[in-house]
């Protein structure tokens, strides 16, 4: 018998094998379209940022923001549905799978999903010569770390609420502003001081800076350990919250 966590992962992968077509666009095509529209289209009028062609400058930003958006998007309706609509979570809980196994298996699945999207993106972008440094491979673990840092608290949130309207608000007031103001498309130094603090608080900004440092082969603005440490705090706190939320929700 497989370990319960692995069994949970397997269950999500089985579902993904049936439903992968539905997420083709958001996982693989959307980042490339963003890059074409803003990176190439608008980039033609921008020229360079800090001595780097604009399109090369936003590649790491688009990479990290795709991981971020996938982590948020995947952990909303699907997680709530497991409790509220399909009651798959209750079914799992009736076996020897614990709440903590469910959270871990789900996180592994999300990391898996984000990593394939990231690798495909890197390969395509690399083929067009938009990656300046061999350090670009270091973006893969960064993106995995970001995925957990974001997916864990969002999963916890989705497991604790009872109405799906909150997701529309989460998308509009957390996900979209983060994507637009966390240094993905323009340097956060341009932001007013107060808004910049909010950008620093977003896990996405830390991942964007780490990814950018990697693809351009330069040092990030803060020491690497500080960026990584910030993301780790989100991971640990998020996982803890998710485990608590799952346990509480499964009691009914």
């Amino acid at each position, binding site marked *: 018998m497989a370990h319960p966590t692995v069994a949970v992962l397997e269950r999500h992968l089985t579902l993904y094998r049936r*439903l992968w*077509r*539905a*997420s*083709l*666009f*958001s996982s693989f*095509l*959307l980042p490339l*379209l*963003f890059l*074409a*529209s*803003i990176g190439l*289209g*608008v980039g*033609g*009028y*921008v*020229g360079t*940022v800090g001595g780097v062609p*604009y399109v090369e400058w936003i590649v790491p930003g688009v990479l990290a923001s795709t991981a971020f958006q996938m982590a948020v998007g995947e952990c909303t309706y699907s997680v709530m549905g497991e409790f509220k609509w399909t009651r798959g979570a209750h079914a799992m809980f009736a076996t020897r799978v614990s709440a903590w196994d469910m959270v871990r298996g789900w996180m592994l699945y999300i990391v898996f999903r984000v990593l394939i999207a990231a690798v495909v993106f890197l390969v395509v972008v690399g083929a067009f010569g938009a990656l300046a440094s061999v350090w670009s491979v270091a973006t893969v673990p960064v993106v995995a770390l970001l995925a957990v840092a974001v997916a864990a608290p969002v999963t916890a949130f989705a497991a604790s609420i009872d*109405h799906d*309207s*909150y997701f*529309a*608000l989460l998308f*509009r*007031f957390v996900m*979209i*502003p983060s994507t*637009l*103001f966390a240094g993905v*498309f*323009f340097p956060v130094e*341009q*932001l007013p001081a107060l808004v910049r603090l909010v950008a620093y608080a977003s896990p996405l900004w830390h991942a964007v800076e780490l990814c950018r440092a990697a693809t351009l082969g330069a040092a990030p603005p803060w020491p690497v350990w500080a960026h990584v440490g910030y993301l780790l705090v989100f991971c640990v706190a998020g996982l803890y919250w998710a485990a608590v939320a799952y346990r509480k929700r499964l009691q009914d």
Partner: protein
Amino acid sequence: MVTLVVARRVSAGRVGAVVGRNVGALRSGASYWLVLVSGFFEPLLYLLSIGIGVGALVGRIPLGDGRVVSYAVFVAPAMLAASAMNGALAETTFNFFFKMKYAKTFEAILATPVRPIEVALGELTWAMMRSAFYTAAFLLVMAVMGLAEPWWALAAFPATMLVGVAFGAAGMAVSTFLRGWQDFDLMTAAQFSLFLFSGTFAPVGGYPPVLAAVVEVTPLYHAVELVRGLALGRLEWALAGHALYLVVLAGVGLWVASRRIQRVLCS
């Protein structure tokens, strides 16, 4: 012609009743309200991020007629057109589909004297109210930020209504063909691709020729050109062409939608 056919069979009172049902649904709770209002912020955030943030890197951009404007002035009307589209599509795709397929709202309505075309018109009117709320608020923001002359902003408002009607009708027609929620990924894909490549963030003249040719037959391109022309005070005959495209789209969309409601629900 479409208007004539429509006018003969439609009762304003019955259409109004369909609209009234939607207004009544607002009382279902604060969350629907919040979602409705929050939709206004999306294009505004794009305007601030891309229009102003990236705009600081771009500087000024040529309009193609010799005039050069700041990048935010260029992007703002495009976000306005996009918010008209989003407002109308939010009601006529996601909500419309739910009402048709899962809540069986239309079956209940059609059990009364209300006809399919009246359902289509009522839903479209409601979608327009949402879309008009977004664009009016956005135009106000544009005027306050100095991104459009107040009079031209006022002139652009009816154009955004036309954009809303066209997308609302087309969205409704498409919704009647969707099989399930998984099809919404395709729908979102189409909507977002239009948003990214309709002369919204960069002039179509700068696109590769093949892409430009494709973009020129898609609806948001015409919406952006029409709204941008009016918001920037560039009156030219091409605007009439863009408007005509949207009128035709609205007519065809409405016709297909009411035919499909008839076929799917009344037989």
